[in-house]
């Protein structure tokens, strides 16, 4: 694929092979009216195989969600047919209402108005903990 073929939009590169449909759902790309291309199992020197998503419009993407799902993804912002910006992701320090606490003893289980907030406890292992009850996710 040639990302330069997009005039203005976003290319999500280095997606772990097989995860592109998960991202498509998490980022609600099905709700967009512009063209969205999902390219699966592309040959990659670094990854063996990878997926790529191309969005033919400059949409705002929640980088925290993206970083949580797959911190290895590269976000390319395309303008006038060239890469204007390349963003390398990492696991976000804090996640709000992206994952939900499943501990029945946690206050979030009885207070529906509370935000579900997790903080990164172990970057190496990708462990998040609920700020209220310390449960692991």
């Amino acid at each position, binding site marked *: 694929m040639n990302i330069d073929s997009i005039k203005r939009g976003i290319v999500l590169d280095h997606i772990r092979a097989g995860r592109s449909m998960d991202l498509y759902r998490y980022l609600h790309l099905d709700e967009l009216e512009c063209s969205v291309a999902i390219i699966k199992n592309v040959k990659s020197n670094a990854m063996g195989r990878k997926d790529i998503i191309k969005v033919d419009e400059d949409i705002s993407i929640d980088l925290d969600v993206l970083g949580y799902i797959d911190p290895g993804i590269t976000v390319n912002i395309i303008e006038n047919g060239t890469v204007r910006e390349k963003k390398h992701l990492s696991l976000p320090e804090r996640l709000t209402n992206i994952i939900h606490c499943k501990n029945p*003893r946690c206050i979030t289980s*009885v207070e529906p*108005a509370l935000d579900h907030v997790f903080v990164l406890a172990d970057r190496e292992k990708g462990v998040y903990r609920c700020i209220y*009850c310390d449960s692991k996710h």
Partner: protein
Amino acid sequence: MRHLINITDFSTGEIESILDLADQMLSHPEKYRESQRGRILATLFFEPSTRTRLSFESAMLSMGGSVLGFATADSSSTSKGESLTDTIHTVSCYCDIIAMRHPKEGAPLAGSLISEVPVINAGDGGHNHPTQTLTDLMTIRREKGRLDRLTVGMCGDLKFGRTVHSLIGAMSRYEGVDFVLISPPELRVPDYVTSRLRAEGIPYTEAESMESVMDRLDVLYMTRVQRERFFNEADYIRLKDTYILDTDKLRFARDDLSILHPLPRVNEISVKVDADPRAAYFKQVKNGRYVRMALITKLLEQA
């Protein structure tokens, strides 16, 4: 404005300054008799408690302040379906400081996020109980003369024992502290506590027999197996009498051991141990009042 939700919200320096003030208050209570005149403490106990609630109320009354609140969720608007956040919004208009106990983990943190006055966690489910920890730290410091270089044994229900989780968090910040965690496999300390110990390189041992480790301990912290934390009554019955400290077992202990218990006890410490000079659990109760006086004073100074 400061809150006390988790004991680690306070630095060791801040904790020492609370303990210093508590020591002064215990030695000269008359100096503080009017120090909180005109201030109001709200005690919101969504879960019943005798000792902690009375200790808070006694602390505020001993400084000339006033107290309002409720002792069970049944007597609050929660029974009418009011949310926790609405209750806290309302109560923080009526008082200067809140002490709150709740059966759900993290409830005091949720309250502190919207409260207009300082919130003190007086126990949240099986999670944390930082004012009991301040009481424990005050007692250990008065009994042993220090908080560092100690081998601290924790025995009983280490899974749901919130006082244990808070005390480990607090003591692990002092040099040379070594933990011996004595429990049946089903009631071991939760993973979030031990993973922090491992990450910080703090030594701990897990054991199932009290006798086998008794001679190593400077402090023995006994806990009750709490019926209210079990979803299954049969599990409670099976585990409740796993550890009973009696005079026979104390024969293995050092002469300068300090025995602590957050109380109430059921039968995990024989009443015969009460007369042993190493028993410090009733001193703990007394210390609890003074350390809460010191905490309320410090939080109101910063409000």
